């Protein structure tokens, strides 16, 4: 993931990605996922390109992008930690875990540490209610999160 990309490169790489996927039925979400995988987020200047390639309006692409919390408007930190805050996890103490994480990283939800190491996000149900409280680090899920498990996560993040 290269953070310094010129506008021309955005256009060129986006067009490539869109060209590869636009034949799909309902191509917008696969394209947005691929764009995010490429750039780490969905840059504002890519939305009109997607709109024009798929013959949609800018507004429509903007509506879809803003609907999904997983599609980012800005690049995230090197790691993304999601803590489940839904009912089952709350009943198993996820609030306490959240407080602890915020304290350890010195950031709140939706924020990234100053060194760019980690972005903290809430998530409403990972489908792991049986193993609550649950978390997800860079796409990998963790169940029955406790102090010990947190240490493991933090070591991973700090590495």
């Amino acid at each position, binding site marked *: 993931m290269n953070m310094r990309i010129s506008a021309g490169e955005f256009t060129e790489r986006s067009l490539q990605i869109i060209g590869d996927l636009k034949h799909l039925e309902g191509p917008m979400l696969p394209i947005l996922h691929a764009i995010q995988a490429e750039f780490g987020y969905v840059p*504002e200047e890519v*939305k*009109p390109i997607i*709109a024009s390639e798929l*013959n*949609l*309006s*800018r*507004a*429509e*692409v*903007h*509506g879809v992008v*803003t*609907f999904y*919390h997983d599609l980012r408007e800005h690049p995230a930190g090197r790691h993304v930690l999601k803590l489940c805050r839904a009912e089952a996890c709350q009943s198993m103490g996820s609030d306490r875990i959240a407080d602890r994480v915020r304290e350890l990283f010195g950031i709140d939800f939706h924020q990234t540490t100053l060194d760019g190491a980690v972005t903290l996000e809430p998530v409403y149900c990972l489908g792991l209610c049986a193993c609550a409280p649950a978390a997800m680090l860079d796409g990998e899920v963790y169940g029955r999160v406790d102090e010990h498990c947190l240490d493991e996560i933090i070591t991973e993040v700090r590495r």
Partner: protein
Amino acid sequence: MSLVHEIDYGTPASRSETWVALTIDGRQITVPEGTSIMRASMEAGIQVPKLCATDMVDAFGSCRLCLVEIEGRAGTPSSCTTPVMPGMVVHTQTNRLKDIRRGVMELYISDHPLDCLTCAANGDCELQDMAGAVGLRDVRYGYEGDNHVRGRNNGEINARWMPKDESNPYFTYDPSKCIVCSRCVRACEEVQGTFALTIEGRGFESRVSPGMHEHFLDSECVSCGACVQACPTATLTEKSVIAIGQPEHSAVTTCAYCGVGCSFKAEMRGEELVRMVPYKDGQANRGHSCVKGRFAYGYATHKDRILNPMIREKISDPWREVTWEEAFAHVASEFRRLQYQYGRDSVGGITSSRCTNEETFLVQKLIRAGFGNNNVDTCARVCHSPTGYGLGQAFGTSAGTQDFDSVEHTDVVIVIGANPTDGHPVFGSRLKKRLRQGAKLIVIDPRRIDLVRTPHVEAAYHLPLQPGTNVAVLTALAHVIVAEGLFDEKFIRERCDWSEFEDWAAFVSEEQHSPEATEKFTGVPADLVRGAARLYATGGNGAIYYGLGVTEHSQGSTTVMAIANLAMATGNIGRPGVGVNPLRGQNNVQGSCDMGSFPHELPGYRHISDDATRDIFEKMWGVTLNNEPGLRIPNMLDAAVEGTFKGIYIQGEDILQSDPDTKHVSAGLAAMECVVVHDLFLNETANYAHVFLPGSTFLEKDGTFTNAERRINRVRKVMSPKNGYADWEVTQKLAQAMGLNWSYTHPSEIMDEIAATTPSFALVSYDYLDKMGSVQWPCNEAHPAGSPIMHVDGFVRGKGKFIRTEYVATDERTGPRFPLLLTTGRILSQYNVGAQTRRTDNVTWHTEDRLEIHPHDAEQRGIKDGDWVKLASRSGDTALRALITDRVAPGVVYTTFHHPNTQANVITTDFSDWATNCPEYKVTAVQVSPSNGPTEWQSDYEELSRRSRRIAGKLEAAE
């Protein structure tokens, strides 16, 4: 008078012909299958509470207020999304429903400002109405929590709050009042088809967003106002309503802009117009509008409007204000003097395509009966005269064959030389809706117009031809249809002359008409022509819509005939979804042609040499009519330069700006001794006038306009004429001053005279129009309800006529000195010469005319975007700023003619259609070069305009 009330049924009507009976709240009702429970209830007179539903858009089911209970079904389904079923028993009001609705309303109101008394929507707010309807008395949640209402919460900045967006000149967007019902978003998508709005975010964060969280003005929004009309609260509100307040009475009238002829409710407070709201029962627009019709009426009260008659001896003198009596007496004596001195044929007149049928009828009557000659013409001369001639020859009537509803049944549409999304926006929206449903589109245009590719619409074929090669391309299409045997033999044998068809078929089959042969000079790849021909001939119902890109050529009439040939050869005439449809430019250009505005035709397209027709009018008017056709506009100007034509009465047309070869027009006008201009403003032609008679707007008079689908629509007076007289009264008083015994007391009497003398209008009267809403001529004993579709059982002329269409290249050719082709057009926010729209906030979108040029041509000439460039042709030169775009092909440049200082017609030549003299606006060989600013002619002309607009005793009128 009171407000014209329209019922909102909540969801669109079902078209099914199967009927379903059900019971709602104990009442039996029968409705078409597919109708929603909500609509069925409303038809039974029961209003189910609702917020997100309105009948201009499909049901959405998000507000959860319209819930009902259905016997035998669990839960509380929403009535807007649940279709009726036979035998269903529905309850719209139960204790359970009451509790749910009140709970929903509590949530809405907990995040809504409570400023109802000072809110612009007070009295016209559905949220307020629903709070009343569900009996909301308390909001248990309070108003203190998270909200979008206040800029600060307990001193802290509220990130959810957004300030008002006032960027659009006509309406405001106040996100704090939004209930996120999505009605605006859906109206923009389903009705207008622009897709400029979306809901951004999700859950409590959801807000309406123009474009990508942009201001309305910066977004894709075209300001049609459908969102404002759909909004149930004050979130989207007309600025005029904010400034004035709610209207108290209204009248249904007809828009005075383009030939679509949209019906509007003019909503009034006293004599002040509060807003224009498109009328759902309007049969042309079906409740939709564009930025011009809905918002651009400010010219009616603009300070530039001249309200007193004025006279001057010489055009170099300042104007002198006089009384109406003095003006009428002066004109009458001048015209009599000229006729005495120079002969009866030395005077004439021009009728207006912007005035009513009644007014146009009176002007031609004044000329034929009062002046005693047939020197009458109209601005259709410069736009659709080839349509009249071409369709008259082929089918027998000089008009389009369909109504606008027909587009809903079309499978393949050919748009040729027209730009509906700019020129005829409401029809454009209806067309786009059909295209989104799957109809196929073929665009034949030198320029990549919006329809070629715009969100959710993409043309199957775009044939980007060289300007001036329409006939060659259309004949090549015919070549493919004949050569590949795709014609409809049964239709042709039944409806047309088979031997004429054979002759024509042999002609188009010649090798030189094949797409491969014509490709060399049309620039259209042969495979595109073949594909398009196959699609049109075999794709189902095929309809052709065309505009001035067809008619304003030296072969305009030939092109119209070529279009007629295509439609007949493929059997695409005489039923819904097909036909040949000219998109008329001005509100009443069809009507002005119908009313006998041409020098050779009496009302109803009957030739002046026909004794029986003349006899009808001679008996009615008590005069003897001249049986020789009079002069056309270009002939009048030629005669003026030669010194035989001396006086002219011009009603509501600015020939100096709209007619070709400006220098020739100005020379003709300058050579006349009495030029009478009857208009709202001191237009460009008035620079050469000796008498100015102030005109009245469409809001100030009764009458009728006839739109492009031959629909006669009522125009209703909602305010008194600011200048004192409606235009028909001015013409009448002028006629009286000339000794004619006219005594009309109301335009309805003029319509009665039209009906009595013109067979195709036989049954038309104001009472009948009030009863029917509108009718499409012919409206007579044979067609009492009017004629939405013509030539149903056979052509009006008997057999449809196939005519050979030999391509003859225009004499206007490119060469080393003038290597580029200029073509002209119009833009959405402006109308014609701009006299009206330039005097409204529509200039926000289009402050000047720009020259569109391809990047390749621009680079060769060292021109950058926004640079001043000189545009020169064999006729003259002008300067304007460049707009670099690949919408035009290399070798082609394009501009609009909405601003008088651009003087685009200084450039155009005096080549014209061989049959009708319609000028060749669409092709001029030009050169483009960098320049420092306006040309000498433009500066001189500006000085002349300034001088000739002086009024004695007044400060200079600012243009």
